[in-house]
């Protein structure tokens, strides 16, 4: 029972990371590998806000949301927009986002030093709920709720709102979208901002959850995030949520039933078996182009 809960909480963190990731990847068809740097940077800045400025975590989270958004705008402006006219824009953007992410991390190290940092112990209410012999912390419940709410909210936004329609139009064909009077640059920038804002919040919640923030924390979750997106189906937000839970549960149950040394083999083996059985992912739609 405790292991099931462990898996759900771990999975929600992966989902939280993957939702922001897949928004840019799935909707705009750009792979933003600076996302993990946003994740780390926001966690560090969040820690700084709580320890130095003495802000409460509830004030810090909205600030980090905005901060992440600003980083997203920077990433779009610096790493992606200058390349958009090139025929290899997708690939070049991928490389330049890795480079920009590395720069963020280097700045982070210069600013904060190499030490592992953490939130002060009382930053988040240390409430624990005993439930059928298992322990659950308030924070973990909040993380699951936030991940789920974001998934629902964003799915609605992408399918219903004007911005969402704009995003899908840009994803389908930027030139046609421009002809139809959509401000492609603005939509792209907004998508990046939203994606990174989510990545930032995910970083803070992650650091709170494991009581540790390292500069490399984003890198280790990035691969999992990519796996989650592929398992769930490219660009599908419910898929990212479900994929996160599946990868999280797979890891936990690998530890319980197979052996802790086999964890990554099982988790990534799952990735490949899903790719074999359902190449488009669980929620992914096969792309059918009509002419």
């Amino acid at each position, binding site marked *: 029972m405790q292991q099931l809960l462990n898996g759900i909480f771990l999975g929600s963190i992966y989902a939280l990371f993957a939702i922001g990731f897949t928004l840019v990847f799935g909707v705009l068809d750009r792979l933003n590998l600076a996302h993990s740097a946003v994740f780390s940077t926001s966690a560090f800045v969040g820690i700084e806000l709580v320890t130095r400025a003495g802000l409460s975590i509830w004030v810090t989270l909205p600030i980090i949301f905005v901060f992440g958004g600003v980083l997203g705008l920077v990433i779009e402006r610096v790493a992606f927009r200058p390349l958009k006219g090139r025929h290899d824009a997708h690939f070049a953007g991928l490389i330049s986002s890795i480079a920009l992410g590395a720069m963020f991390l280097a700045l982070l190290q210069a600013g904060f030093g190499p030490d592992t940092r953490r939130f002060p112990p009382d930053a988040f209410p240390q409430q624990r709920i005993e439930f059928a012999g298992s322990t659950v912390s308030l924070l973990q419940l909040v993380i699951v709720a936030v991940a789920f709410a974001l998934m629902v909210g964003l799915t609605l936004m992408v399918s219903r709102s004007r911005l969402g329609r704009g995003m899908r139009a840009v994803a389908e064909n930027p030139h046609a979208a421009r002809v139809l009077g959509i401000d492609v640059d603005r939509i792209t920038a907004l998508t990046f901002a939203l994606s990174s804002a989510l990545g930032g919040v995910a970083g803070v919640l992650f650091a709170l959850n494991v*009581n540790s923030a390292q500069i490399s924390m984003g890198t280790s979750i990035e691969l999992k995030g990519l796996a989650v997106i592929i398992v769930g189906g490219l660009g599908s937000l419910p898929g990212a949520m479900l994929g996160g839970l599946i990868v999280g549960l797979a890891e936990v149950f690998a530890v319980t039933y197979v052996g802790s040394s086999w964890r990554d083999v099982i988790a990534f083996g799952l990735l490949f078996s899903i790719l074999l059985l359902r190449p488009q992912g669980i929620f992914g739609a096969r792309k059918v182009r009509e002419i």
Partner: protein
Amino acid sequence: MRRLTGSIAGAAVLALALSACGSGDSATTGGGGGASALKGTGTGDTCKITTPVPIGAVFSLTGAAASYGESQKKGLELAAEELKAKGGVTYDVKIEDDATDPQQGIAVFERFVTKDKKSLIIGPTLSNTAKQTDPVAQEGKTPVLAVSNTAAGITEIGDYIFRDSLTEGAVIPQTVAAAKTKFGLSKVVVMYSNDDAFTESGYQAFKAALDKSGVTITKTITFAKSDTDFRAQLTEAKGAAPEALVVSALIEAAVPLVTQARELGITVPIIGGNGFNSPKLMTGAGKSADGVVVGAAWNSASSGPENEAFLTAYRAKYSADPDQFAAQAYTGLKLVDAAVRAGCSGEREDIKKNLAGLKDVPTALGKFTMTATRDADTPAVVQVVEGGKFAVLK
């Protein structure tokens, strides 16, 4: 086609030029160049060498092990400052970063051995890296003094490799014995990260010590050194109802592991390897760290005038408390100084000979003797965290 031939020819010329450079370098190394300037007059405290003795240090100042490297750098710089004030023999200490990457470590070692011609190399931070870099120095006949490597198989690389850090193999049996007496242990769960040479050899040492003292290991659980969420593994461990949790991990993993263990209601003592031996455990894990047992080569509570002098000087310079890594790096340079003064020579061969002969040298780590296998022989101290502080386990 013509262009291809041209570039092949170009590459060949380049390769020739490079190999010519290489042989030129080794020729000057063999001949000893201006190395005789490193021989001085007098012995011990009266020794005078006019040229500063070139020392290279390789620490992990960035990357996963950066928090250790930072401490080592501070300890080493403090020692260099003190030796400079003492006079007679001065040291030109150059500290380089290996970025916790063995490849970069090898590159720096190669430069120190062939190009910079350092008399001795201090470092690298991790045993993992040392296993790959030290053969470079051994081949180039340059002595290495490891100041933090505690894994097995480091000094076995060759007769130029020394260390002042007490091995896990020496500390852990003392830790296990002390914990067994104190808590009356009969069954434990062992956890370790199996993708790092240091924590792996810590695990081997724990296993041997536990087996020898008749404590049953009911379960062995592994994780990766970059992991931060241990709840799945800890729930497994809790299910086995151990009387203590024995963990071999680096400090980056130790802090979240200890916090999450307490969170899941694991209240038994946690016996840690060398990686737990840092004040960062208490600053990071807070109250959760209480009940953690760690054996160490050094403790700020250890007595001795050398250790007290070190503590005072370190606090004055950095306004922070040193950890074991700072103490060992500090001691490292002091030992090099002792070896240089013993023969009053800063040459590689003489340093090598005199390091091997160090006996009962009073240091911040206690009385230091270099064993026949070029390992450290100093007293270990078993500590337990109580009220957020390391206290000696009694």
